[in-house]
């Protein structure tokens, strides 16, 4: 009887978790279909600026990598290479495995180099090892494994509680220990991803050309000129200006409209 209660409780745990996970995506539900169809129609008829605006709006609302990717394509076709590079960067931030976005970003940067010239900024931005580790694993499978380990751990502990001491109880305990390690590892990676996302300050220059300045003032001393597609780090923002840091650690101010944050 007690064993049956334990098993029933374990089943309740699994069911509640599944319902919670399955309901959650449905409750934050989808974009209105006509907007995306309008965007597709605009793209197909070469009204690229209009398509880009709709795709970008849909992407902003739904945080959809595919929508950002399509917005990037529309911006590219419309000749707006800076916004295209930003859109592809946003798509890759949401879905690092999206090879098409990576390819198109490369093509965009090549086109920028041809049209506007290459930026001679040496150096690279470094990413913490734990951020690289957390981004290496796709988010949905990572979450699924962590949640699965969570549920399995509780089920194993409940079942173990109802068993008499013996080999079965020992095995269940070992299984629970392994599952707990998996859960902790997955949870750690998830936490790392959340922290990295919240702290991320990557930006992309969207203006074709922009002159960096020493101070947030058009009359202040000019610094290097940067071109569309250049990756920068946003340091802070103030009254229509954005302070950025280049990969060579040079910092300066750019007009706010010349820089777009990868994370909106």
């Amino acid at each position, binding site marked *: 009887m007690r064993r049956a209660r334990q098993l029933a409780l374990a089943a309740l745990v699994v069911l509640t978790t599944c319902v919670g996970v399955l309901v959650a995506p449905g409750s934050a539900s989808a974009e209105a279909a006509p907007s995306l169809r309008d965007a597709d129609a605009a793209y197909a008829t070469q009204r690229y600026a209009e398509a880009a605006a709709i795709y970008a709006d849909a992407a902003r609302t*739904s945080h*959809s990598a595919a929508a950002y990717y399509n917005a990037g394509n529309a911006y590219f076709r419309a000749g707006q290479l800076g916004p295209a590079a930003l859109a592809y960067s946003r798509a890759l931030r949401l879905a690092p495995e999206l090879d098409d976005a990576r390819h198109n970003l490369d093509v965009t940067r090549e086109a920028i180099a041809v049209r506007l010239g290459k930026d001679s900024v040496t150096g690279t931005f470094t990413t913490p090892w734990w951020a690289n580790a957390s981004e290496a694993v796709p988010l949905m499978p990572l979450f699924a494994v962590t949640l699965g380990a*969570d549920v399995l751990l*509780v089920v194993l*502990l409940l079942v173990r509680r109802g068993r008499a001491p013996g080999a079965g109880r020992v095995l269940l305990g070992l299984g629970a220990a392994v599952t707990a390690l998996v859960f902790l590892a997955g949870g750690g990676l998830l936490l790392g991803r959340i922290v990295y996302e919240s702290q991320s300050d990557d930006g992309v220059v969207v203006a074709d050309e922009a002159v960096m300045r020493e101070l947030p003032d058009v009359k202040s001393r000019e610094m290097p000129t940067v071109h569309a597609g250049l990756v920068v780090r946003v340091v802070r923002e103030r009254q229509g200006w954005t302070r950025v840091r280049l990969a060579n650690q040079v910092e300066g101010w750019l007009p706010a409209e010349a820089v777009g944050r990868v994370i909106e």
Partner: protein
Amino acid sequence: MRVRDRHLAARLGPRPWTIVVALLVGALGVGAWPRAATAQTADRPTIELKVSPTSATVDDQIVVVVEAHIPGVSGAERYIPPEWPEFDVVDTRRQTMTQMSSDFSGHQSITTVEVRSALLKPRRAGKLRIGEARIRVNGVEYQTRPVIVQIAPSGQAPVPDPVPPSGASPGVGQSGLPLPDASLAASPIFIYAHVDRERVKVGEQVTVTWYLWTRSEVVNFAPSPPRFDAFSGETLFETQNRFRYVQELLGGQQYSVAVIIKKALFAAQPGKFTIAPYTASVATLRTMGSRQLRSNPLEITVDPLPPGAPADFDAAMVGRFEAKASVDRTSIPAGEPIELTLTVRGEGPIRSARIPTIDLPGFTVYPPRTYKETLDLSGDKVAGTRSYAYLLTPKQGGDLTIDAISVPFYNPATGAYEAARTEPITITVVGVSGSDKGSPRDNVIARDIRPPLELAAATPPAFHPRGEVFWLALHALWVPPALFACVLVVGGIRSRLSRETTRTRRRRAKVQTRARSRAASAALAAGKIGDFYKALADLLRERLEACLGGPIGALTRAELRARLGARGVSPAGVDLVIRELDVCDAGRYAPGASEPARMQATLDDALAAAAVLDEAEAAVEAGAAVGAEERAS
């Protein structure tokens, strides 16, 4: 009319005219708006002659349908039927209807549709001619083309329709559209994919068209076009708001056929490629809900270009091209640049072309940063123009010649590498020879981006730390541990509550005593002597078992006295207990006096005996607790 022909009856059933007319009406219903729209757009009458089948035997019957669409309500002034001297007329029918339609801007138009049909029987075998049908509208005559019908002798199989010489498709319909396999006629609606060529060279255009074949009006069409990872492409035609149908016969069935999309594809590398099926969710007037349609996949073999390409050959330049060069001025002061505009025009994937690298002796050439491009997608071939503006600075003065610029390309028609050449241009540099300015930039291969992704009709929200979905789902992680914690807490509480302590035992004893006392009182009030003494006996037994820690049923009175004494019960208390036990036994098994007052006194004494036993039990437990504390310390 009796249907004499068993083949037609087998195809159409026992009432062929009913079905033929129903098909005609259905086809008209399907094709009405687009056909009216066509008439509105064209603003002129149309007449069409359809014959089915075009290959039969002398025993078969031939259906001839003449359909005329005339703008307005008046109809045709005169109708001249086709001549068919080698056929006997079995039956004729005529139907006239008026249709109203509106175009995208809401403008309405009226069209009169006249349908005349005839059922004919051939008189002999051979190639028999059905002549033109004509109508006269507003003094102008319109006519169809004649149709030749192949009639085989009786008992022989009909001669199959000849395959038209043009295409890679199995057959061509009367409207000029490629016909799919007749087995598809089993389906009332399908998507047919057709490719103009199944084998091309790298960079050569292959045109893929997807047709919608339907027997009833489409009310909803949600496409999911395939991706073309191995190809770059241009859309030559795509239906925007409403399908424009033409009528075709397939397997004896009348279909309305419309182009969904036509694309020009260019392969960037050799190999065998499959163009995935075009899928769409379609709802028609005849179906309840939508159904998924899938076209046939297409196999395309792309051969590499032949060897021998020029050194500066651009793989995107496959087609036919011509080039022209011009300068902004022919006389310049020394030290100043001139702008050379190179215009390349032609048919081919010019959008994928690189900026040509040109090397002109006597000049320093600065390649352009941008170019102007126009595309012409109006025909079946992708054509376009690219204009590149180069800056040239002469290296010396005097009369200089800008040599002819050669832009190599591969011509699939001739199978050879050719070159589009410009004419040489002569300029004059006045003054001292100039000096180099600027610095050359790298020439970059102009790759193209990959096509857009197909977003689902409803884009699901992304699963990402910046999305609501992620945070909602994250809550699921604490649910299992929380439930487990609840299980532990609830289990602990239950365990604590069910633990046997002194307090719980004493509480239980009190409850039992009260219950027995109430039972005895009730029996006393009811006059049930047996029940009364039984209740008292049970009460005393329970208290004795609790005090002595075990059953007492097998003990004699002497043993009972001894145990009670050992438990610390006073002699008076022992006597009271024993006496009450004896009274209860006597009352149960040898009922005697039943005075209520006496019985009440017995009850009181029994309760007093129970109290004595409880005190003894408590004293024993208190002593045990003290002993345990002393041992612990």
